[in-house]
């Protein structure tokens, strides 16, 4: 073997080994379009500095399209995505089906014990953490302090539904274009069904009893729907059956709602640059009825790894970076504390700087009062506050949402709506084998 040949061989081996060491792993992250996710995409230089061997490609899709694409991919073992953005509804279902990789082995600096217990509980199945929360939310009352003051009223920090009705009546002034209260009416399992289900918990209602028998024929549901319809028909904006989160956000920002009960994440919007009432917004806990449960929900957009991903180590490195305490500090440093993704970590709410953010306390108080394992006054066989974590719920939730939305539009009475909901849900539960 000549010296030249040996040199060439050595160089080739060295080149191959170096190439392997520098090989870049590209992971695909499927996500929804929201402010926190977009902010993260702008902070990726920090991730690349820490992980120069990992490249991240983003697929941003509309929420329902994302759900459909990701479900198809996971069910067929496609492996197109390495990190998914999924909600609290999917995690227990997909975790049980073995579709998600365990995150129990994230590094120590991830500090799993720092996660808010309520949020962590919703993302854990049989002791296995299947998703890491990126931001968490509950729901609360957002109200106009100026209108309340003009009416000579003060909003309690923890109001009852009766307080809400009184305040709505006091602020309702349709001639001036102000409506007492804006609530979700648009049909959809993530729209009006989410709101009314969370509300029903505070009235003692539940979707199913311990034997999975639908409960829409019970007096608690009648009380819930009667109150909701009366409140909205008396003090709500016209066309409320078409209003979802974004429509109500628009109305509130334009000064047309005295109150709005919705996601805590809305607090940053109603106090932001697009709001005409940013300086006169107050916050209170979601209402109760004195039964020990409030009408607030619990949701978290979380990052998870599909079991079909071939790049799980790189995906875990990304999730650890994106949902770590250090990331919250990075956002605070670059964008300010008000822009830090809320509702995931205990340490954030112990931070004095974050405590100065106007909606921080109300957000954590709201999250802490929601219990996905015991959402209502009576025991339930399911997990979930504003949803029921079973695969059939998406379809049933949307059907019930359509029925309730029609009732709000005046197309049917509360009794008719509840009877239809009971029939539809019973049929589906029979077809799915939960009941005979």
């Amino acid at each position, binding site marked *: 073997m000549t010296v030249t040949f040996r040199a060439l061989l050595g160089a080739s081996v060295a080149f191959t080994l170096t190439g392997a060491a520098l090989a870049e792993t590209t992971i695909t992250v499927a996500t929804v379009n929201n402010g926190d996710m977009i902010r993260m995409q702008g902070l990726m230089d920090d991730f690349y500095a820490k992980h120069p061997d990992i490249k991240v490609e983003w697929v*941003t*899709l509309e929420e329902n399209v994302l759900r459909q694409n990701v479900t198809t991919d996971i069910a067929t073992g*496609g492996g197109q995505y390495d990190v998914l953005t999924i909600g609290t509804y999917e995690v227990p279902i997909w975790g049980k089906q073995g579709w998600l990789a365990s995150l129990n082995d994230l590094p120590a600096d991830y500090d799993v014990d720092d996660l808010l217990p309520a949020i962590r509980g919703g993302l854990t199945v049989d002791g296995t953490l299947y998703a890491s929360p990126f931001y968490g939310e509950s729901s609360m009352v957002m109200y106009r302090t100026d209108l309340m003051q003009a009416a000579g009223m003060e909003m309690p920090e923890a109001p009852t539904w009766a307080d809400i009705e009184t305040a709505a009546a006091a602020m309702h002034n349709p001639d001036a274009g102000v409506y007492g209260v804006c609530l979700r009416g648009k049909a959809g399992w993530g729209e009006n069904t989410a709101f009314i289900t969370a509300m029903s918990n505070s009235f003692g209602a539940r979707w199913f009893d311990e034997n999975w028998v639908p409960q829409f024929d019970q007096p608690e549901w009648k009380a819930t729907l009667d109150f909701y319809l009366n409140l909205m028909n008396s003090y709500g904006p016209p066309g409320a059956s078409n209003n979802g989160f974004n429509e109500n956000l628009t109305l509130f920002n334009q000064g047309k709602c005295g109150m709005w009960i919705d996601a805590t994440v809305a607090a940053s919007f109603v106090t932001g640059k697009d709001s005409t009432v940013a300086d006169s917004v107050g916050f209170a806990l979601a209402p109760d009825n004195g039964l020990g449960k409030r009408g607030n929900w619990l949701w978290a957009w979380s990052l998870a790894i599909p079991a079909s991903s071939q790049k799980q180590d790189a995906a875990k490195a990304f999730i650890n970076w994106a949902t770590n305490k250090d990331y919250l500090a990075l956002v605070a440093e670059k964008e300010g504390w008000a822009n830090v993704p809320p509702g995931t970590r205990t340490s954030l709410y112990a931070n004095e700087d974050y405590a100065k953010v106007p909606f921080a306390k109300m957000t954590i108080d709201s999250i802490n009062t929601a219990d996905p394992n015991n959402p209502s006054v009576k025991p339930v066989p399911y997990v979930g506050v504003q949803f029921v974590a079973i695969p059939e719920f998406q379809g049933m939730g949307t059907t019930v949402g359509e029925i309730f939305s029609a009732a709000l539009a005046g197309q049917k009475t509360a009794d008719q709506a509840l009877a239809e909901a009971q029939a539809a849900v019973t049929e589906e539960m029979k077809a799915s084998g939960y009941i005979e």
Partner: protein
Amino acid sequence: MARAASPRRKLITTLAAWTVALIIFFPVLWMILTSFKTEASAVAMPPQFLSADWTLENYVEVWGRSAYPRFFWNSVVIAVGSTLLGLVIAIPAAWAMAFVPGKRTKDLLMWMLSTKMMPAVAVMIPIYLLFLRFGLLDTRIGLVLVLMLMNLPIIIWMLYTYFKEIPAEILEAARMDGASLWNEILYVLTPMAVPGIASTMLLNIILAWNEAFWTITLTTTRAAPLSAFIASFSAPQGLFYAKLSAASAMAILPILILGWFSQKQLVRGLTFGAVK
């Protein structure tokens, strides 16, 4: 002999045509206007026009947040590629059906058209599994194939209609002169059908450009076209209409320009054979 239309009738017809055209175009116009408004102005009630806050910020943000050129190039490759491949298959097929029809040609044509009535979602999982098996997920060639198959019935139908208008005697004459089948199609039939082929091509490019179901379902990053680009600007929480409008305007602009300059061929393509 055709009767000359009276000036009054002309005026009424013109006004009616403009009214209908404006009604049809209004959503696109409103979308373009919205793309220049602030998010707050875009959702204001009553809708704002003259009093709106105008801005170019949406375009700056949309451009900055997404790799528009990559999405655009994917759309071009997929739309043009699927159309050209479709023509290569459809021209001989339409020739056969127009000039040497069999007993079941009409049935075959109807069957092909009936496949367009099948909801795409019904075959989503089988197609997805096939793509997965053959490594076609998130590839441009995969989308070229699926969009070609999706539009093939329309291409064949349009070409069939054109070819039926061409006298068979001309092709017979070519055959008498010794032209092979290939030469007959390539050098006699195709040049005579150029206007028809052009309008078929344009219509199918537009259909493929606007397709959203398969292009979003079967792609993630590398092959995602402008339909996926638009979908990325819809937000579950927060105002997004102005930015979504800007993204949509950027996505439809190329096809709008193409449609504008080729409207004569398009109209001819859509109305050919309608009045005889």
